[in-house]
């Protein structure tokens, strides 16, 4: 007598179970198949081609009516199951009950809906089944704008399909890079670049706060208040196992329905398969393990011994025509090392993760041909010590090619600007070389490239080397660090020329040799990116030295110093009282008056920082940035208000300058001073920028030093008004910000580019001066904010221990 098998859910996994079952023993079971969708099994993986129009629904059906009829399956499609009665062993459908001897749950997964206002508006859909796909096709026919929330595989497939169908598509992704589960940031960057090349807008770190609209969706509101117009919103932020029936039936459910290796749930007559299942703490979403599970289910149903063993997985995906591959475990971990290969010209990135002498993980983008070979090495645990040197080049390569240090320059387009001062592109230089300019001097003479400030000299030499090959001998230059062969100057110039606006963009396009930089290059890159792209680039605190990350100066015992700003060295009894109160309240052991005319509270515990800042903020004080590569202080004398020799309001100008410049990040620290007369009590002539007031106006000088080197400033220019003095100083700050090497003080940098060039740019060329000021103000509009107030409000918690185990440990 046939046993009764009821299957809930006609997905890919349960479809495979039925195939296996009927192949092995067609007469063992009488099957009833429930499906909430009004149709049978189809290949869900192929929904993307349906969306993009490459396939039709009929082409992706895996089991048609004839197949069900032949195998005697009773189909109850379009009918929801409302419950399972385990005592009576019946499944309760909307249209009646069915008794079972064995029950198989294949309820799959449900899309996760982010709980924001407007999530139920018409026009907001998920991307899970054929109905969703058809809704998208219908919406796309009307054209307009689509916003896809979620930059994982499904979201990107939806975005690509909608774009193909003519919609204007924006993808929002909460994390820092796309498909963060499958890809590392570098591969994520390349994927983003490809998508953007196809006209899809990608916004990362974009958090949706509401979906707006009256009767239907009209726009998406982001947490940063950006409003994106939308005629269609697709939510593809993730899926979770659909476990409601199992939970209601009191089966054991963790994240998914728990099963043993035979795929049996906590009830011996109920099995589960597919995305609704949790086995050994793991969930499953890719098709290969689901098919393995299906085989086990079929055997268990036929009382044959079988056990499900999760296998090492590889993902080889084509997201909208972009090749990507990931396999094994590519997280950094115990005893692991990276081998990284980047080819900026071809948009290729490969990363292998080794553990001892075996390969444990691989990520590839752009060229995935060797994926299965690497996957084989991972699965088999092959000893790769013999081929380690050339491993990353794949099975076909057994030579010894080295990564090309000139790859980044070779990959530059002809219209990439090499010399910013003179507007000379790579193509101009190559043309000059081909016309016979075969050394640096000749290139300078014919094109003027590197003839002004000179910071692009290294790049011009590299263009010579790339163009002339072995005929040109490269002078040795000091690279930024072990992650690259490029110098600071090269990197800065290339960030501008190639419009690189993120750290992964720099790593990939400039062929970085490490996966995520090091403590030497990351702070420099973070600075270059925020200085060149103040609006587009998002400051990365994790790439800053601790002082700038915690906005306080670390001391040798791991405590911090706190210095409130005193504008132009001026303070009040109220401020002094607040400082005294704070010093007492937080047991500050040392109070010191600094050389920059302010008060330093030394020995504050890291976890007390947000509290002491909050107290000082309340008294109207802000961070003095005494820890930053940025504007530190503007020292002043008391000027004509009090001093009998004073010629101008030096204190007032100092305060104006400090109010204009504070909060700006610079290659190294910047200190100013304003003296009210040539007696120079504020010692303006040994500062980075100094102003000396005279009867006729203001003498502005730059490039002084009073530290490791002692050097008098050199005259930049004399101006008649405070307004001009402010403009000149802002322009000076900006040209330094845009051009200097990270950790070069102004005097070091001016020594390299020459004061004459600086004068031309800042003093003589009025149009350029105005443009510099404008760019400085743009940057200030983003970065001039009190970090104390910001951190107190947004991240005070991160200053405190994540946990305190002193109590538990004492027990």
């Amino acid at each position, binding site marked *: 007598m046939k046993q009764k098998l009821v299957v809930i859910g006609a997905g890919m996994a349960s479809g495979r179970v039925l195939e296996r079952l009927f192949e092995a023993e067609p007469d063992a079971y009488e099957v009833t198949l429930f499906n909430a969708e009004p149709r049978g099994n189809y290949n869900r993986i192929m929904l993307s081609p349906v969306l993009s129009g490459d396939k039709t629904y009929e082409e992706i059906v895996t089991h048609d009516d004839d197949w069900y009829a032949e195998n005697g399956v009773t189909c109850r499609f379009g009918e929801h199951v409302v419950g399972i009665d385990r005592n009576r062993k019946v499944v309760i459908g909307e249209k009646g009950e069915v008794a079972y001897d064995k029950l198989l749950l294949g309820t799959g997964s449900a899309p996760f809906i982010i709980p924001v206002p407007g999530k139920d508006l018409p026009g907001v859909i998920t991307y899970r089944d054929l109905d969703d796909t058809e809704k998208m096709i219908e919406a796309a026919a009307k054209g307009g704008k689509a916003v896809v929330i979620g930059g994982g595989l499904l979201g990107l497939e939806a975005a690509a399909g909608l774009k193909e169908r003519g919609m204007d598509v924006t993808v929002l992704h909460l994390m*820092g890079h796309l498909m963060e589960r499958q890809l*590392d*940031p570098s591969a994520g960057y390349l994927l983003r670049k490809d998508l953007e090349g196809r006209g899809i807008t990608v916004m990362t770190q974009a958090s949706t706060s509401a979906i707006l609209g009256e009767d239907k969706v009209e726009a998406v509101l982001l947490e940063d208040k950006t409003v994106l117009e939308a005629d269609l919103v697709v939510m593809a932020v993730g899926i979770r196992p659909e476990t409601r029936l199992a939970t209601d039936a009191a089966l054991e459910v963790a*994240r998914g329905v728990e099963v043993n290796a035979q795929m049996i749930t906590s009830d011996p007559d109920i099995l589960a398969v597919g995305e609704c299942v949790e086995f050994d*703490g793991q969930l499953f979403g890719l098709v290969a393990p689901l098919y393995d599970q299906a085989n086990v289910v079929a055997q268990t149903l036929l009382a044959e011994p079988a056990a499900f063993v999760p296998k090492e997985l590889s993902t080889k995906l084509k997201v909208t025509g972009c090749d990507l591959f990931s396999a094994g475990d*590519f*997280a*950094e*971990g*115990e*005893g*692991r090392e*990276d081998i990284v290969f980047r080819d900026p010209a071809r948009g290729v990135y490969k990363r292998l993760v080794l553990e001892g002498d075996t390969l444990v993980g691989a990520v590839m983008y752009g060229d995935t041909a060797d994926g299965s070979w690497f996957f084989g090495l991972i699965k088999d645990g092959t000893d790769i010590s013999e081929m380690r040197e050339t491993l990353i080049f794949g099975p076909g390569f057994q030579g010894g090619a080295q990564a090309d240090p000139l790859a980044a320059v070779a990959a530059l387009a002809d219209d990439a600007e090499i010399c910013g001062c003179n507007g000379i592109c790579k193509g101009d230089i190559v043309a000059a070389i081909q016309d016979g300019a075969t050394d640096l001097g000749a290139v300078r003479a014919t094109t003027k490239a590197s003839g002004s400030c000179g910071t692009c000299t290294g790049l011009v030499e590299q263009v010579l080397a790339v163009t002339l090959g072995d005929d040109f001998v490269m002078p040795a230059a000091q690279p930024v660090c072990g992650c690259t062969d490029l110098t600071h100057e090269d990197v800065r110039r290339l960030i501008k020329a190639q419009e690189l606006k993120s750290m992964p963009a720099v790593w990939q396009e400039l062929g970085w040799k*490490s*996966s*995520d*930089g*090091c*403590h030497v290059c*990351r*702070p420099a890159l973070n600075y270059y990116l925020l200085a060149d792209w103040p609006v587009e680039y998002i400051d990365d*605190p*994790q*790439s*800053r*030295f*601790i*002082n700038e*990350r*915690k906005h306080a100066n*670390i001391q*040798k*015992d*791991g405590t911090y110093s706190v210095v409130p700003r005193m504008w132009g060295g001026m303070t009040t009894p109220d401020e002094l009282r607040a400082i005294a109160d704070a010093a007492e309240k937080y047991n500050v052991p040392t109070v010191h008056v600094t050389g920059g005319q302010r008060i330093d509270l030394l020995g504050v515990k*890291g976890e007390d920082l947000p509290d002491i800042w909050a107290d000082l903020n309340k008294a109207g004080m802000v961070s003095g940035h005494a820890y930053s590569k940025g504007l530190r202080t503007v020292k002043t004398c008391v000027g004509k208000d009090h001093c009998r020799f004073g010629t101008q309001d030096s204190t007032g100008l100092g305060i104006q300058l400090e109010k204009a410049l504070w909060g700006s990040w610079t290659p190294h620290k910047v200190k100013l001073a304003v003296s009210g007369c040539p007696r120079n009590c504020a010692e303006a002539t040994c500062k980075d920028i100094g102003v000396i007031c005279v009867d006729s106006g203001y003498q502005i000088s730059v490039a002084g030093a009073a530290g490791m080197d002692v050097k008098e400033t050199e005259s930049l220019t004399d101006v008649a008004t405070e307004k001009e003095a402010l403009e000149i100083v802002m322009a000076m700050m900006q040209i330094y910000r845009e051009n200097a090497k990270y950790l070069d003080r102004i005097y070091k940098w001016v020594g390299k580019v020459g004061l004459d060039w600086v004068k031309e740019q800042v003093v003589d060329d009025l149009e350029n001066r105005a443009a510099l000021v404008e760019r400085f103000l743009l940057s200030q509009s983003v970065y001039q904010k009190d970090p104390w107030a910001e951190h107190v409000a947004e991240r005070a*918690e*991160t200053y405190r*221990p*994540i*946990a*305190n*185990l*002193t109590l*538990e*440990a*004492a027990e």
Partner: protein
Amino acid sequence: MSWIDIGALEEIAPRGARVVKTAFGCVAVFRTETDEVFAVSDRCPHKGGPLSDGIVHGNKVTCPLHNWVFSLETGEAQGADEGQVPTYAARVEAGRILLDATQLQARAVA
């Protein structure tokens, strides 16, 4: 082993660290770019610098005081510097960070 839940993975920034206070001193818990977690003593063996305040790159951290670089897996100083920082078992499960309590105590006694 007895695992203690010390908090959610999201409470530590990628390429960042937080401190766990224990009766035997602070332990620095790191989260790498790829969401691996590591726990090491928060004291640089060189001059006692707080490693939790260092820059995290790959699976290494650079001490903020004098730029010594340590492997987060083995605790060994990299390059020319010689020294070792104690490491503790740590793992992530369902988005929570777990530390091995027995090991924390054993190390303190040893």
